[in-house]
């Protein structure tokens, strides 16, 4: 039983590797499907702004409300803006935004592609001399890779506004002074690894969601399963990449 599971795991891993290779090949092949790529930027990015705005704002607000009393007890209330910003920029912002993105965009991609697979639309593309890997997969993976870092920056900004609101419930401070205090303790080596890892988050969310959708083969049941697995695998990949990024950053900064 264990051996069989292990075997299936490695088979799946090798299939994902082949799929990744094919995706990368089609990202760089011409002619590029630019119209579909722009549509995907809109679908994955623009349509996620509402969700990200609300959750990031609440995240910043709640984080500030919960940490302020503890910091005040140690007489370090003025450190709250910087502490919240570092927590958001370095870890919470990228991870929470990526998880939301995996849930919203990953499930959409998984459901869309798996439904196209079971209704033979992907086969129809193939026999019409169109590359579905280029039209459907390369465009989506590239769009998620580009849009997630943009959304994370935006989420960081919204969380900062939420944090300001939480802070001003008990203190009087201007927005610009709050922002200046928050950025006082943020350094380039905090921002760079956090930004780099979001590109990887976006790439793997797009890739794994496309993989589960594109390779489904069990009819209507497969659509549900592919959607489900797209979110699970994408979310799991976020934590694994995050762990690797933290270790690499730690080694480099030391």
């Amino acid at each position, binding site marked *: 039983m264990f051996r069989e599971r292990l075997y299936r795991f490695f088979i799946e891993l090798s299939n994902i590797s082949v799929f990744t290779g094919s995706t990368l090949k089609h990202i760089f092949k011409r002619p590029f499907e630019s119209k579909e790529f722009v549509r995907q930027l809109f679908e994955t990015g623009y349509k996620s702004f509402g969700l990200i705005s609300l959750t990031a704002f609440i995240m910043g607000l709640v984080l500030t409300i919960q940490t302020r009393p503890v910091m005040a007890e140690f007489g370090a209330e003025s450190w709250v803006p910087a502490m919240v910003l570092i927590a958001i920029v370095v870890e919470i912002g990228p991870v929470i935004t990526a998880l939301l993105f995996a849930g919203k965009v990953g499930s959409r991609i998984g459901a869309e592609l798996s439904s196209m697979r079971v209704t033979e639309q992907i086969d129809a593309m193939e*026999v*019409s001399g169109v*590359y579905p890997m280029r039209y459907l997969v390369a465009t989506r993976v590239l769009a998620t890779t580009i849009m997630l870092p943009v959304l994370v920056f935006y989420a960081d900004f919204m969380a900062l506004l939420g944090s300001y609101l939480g802070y001003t419930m008990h203190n009087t401070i201007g927005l610009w002074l709050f922002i200046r205090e928050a950025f006082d303790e943020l350094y380039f080596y905090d921002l760079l690894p956090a930004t780099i890892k979001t590109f990887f988050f976006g790439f793997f969310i797009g890739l794994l969601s496309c993989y589960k959708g594109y390779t489904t083969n069990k009819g209507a049941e497969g659509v549900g399963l592919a959607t489900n697995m797209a979110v699970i695998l994408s979310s799991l990949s976020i934590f694994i990449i995050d762990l690797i990024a933290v270790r690499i950053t730690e080694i480099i900064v030391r």
Partner: protein
Amino acid sequence: MNKVPIIPLGHAIDIEGVNKSFGENHVLHDINLKLSSDENLVILGRSGTGKSVLIKCIVGLEKYDSGVIYVLGNNIGTMDEFDLNDLRKDIGFLFQGGALYDSMTVEENLLFSLERNARHLARSEMNDLIDDVLESVGLLDAKFMMPVELSGGMKKRAGLARTLVLKPKVILYDEPTTGLDPFTSEGINELILSVKERYKTASIVVTHDMKTAKITADRMIIMERGEILARGSYDDLKRIDNEVIRGFFN
């Protein structure tokens, strides 16, 4: 798999000793057939006899285990992704459910293939070609409709139009009349004949409907459990004393 066959001139498709399994399930056993460049071949068989798998092997959607398939002189089994893609422009495939892109109108479905495979054409030429093909399948009025608004028969017509717009040399029909009422089926059968006449295509029609087979076939093959059971004209097959074959005629 790589033995070199001799392809007689005029053969659009040449299949030699093809086998295909899904795990323990052997779906195709030693299939041999040839399709001339001007004939309609009907493959008749019950559900699950491997007919659809065979035409998917021909177009490269399924990989076969052994044997060789030549389509328009090209060995499908040894072609890379890009060469196969080029060849597919000459092979039309009508899917059982039409397989229309459900986020596009009928016109956009046709334009999608055309824009990517006929870049030398101006947009006005593409529009003329689309109108011409839609008219030939009787769907010009449905040009701006979404697939969800079409009936089963209209979906198949639109699927065929999407294939015809690329001017294929060979068309593979996967159960073209399945799920349609007798009147609509008759319309599709007539369409298959008119397409052959007008576009000078060779075709393979996979079906379990004897009426479709009788109307559209120049030649027929009956498949059973992944093997070719009999081949010949409608009248030849009618004379064979075999329980499975009799089942189709009764």
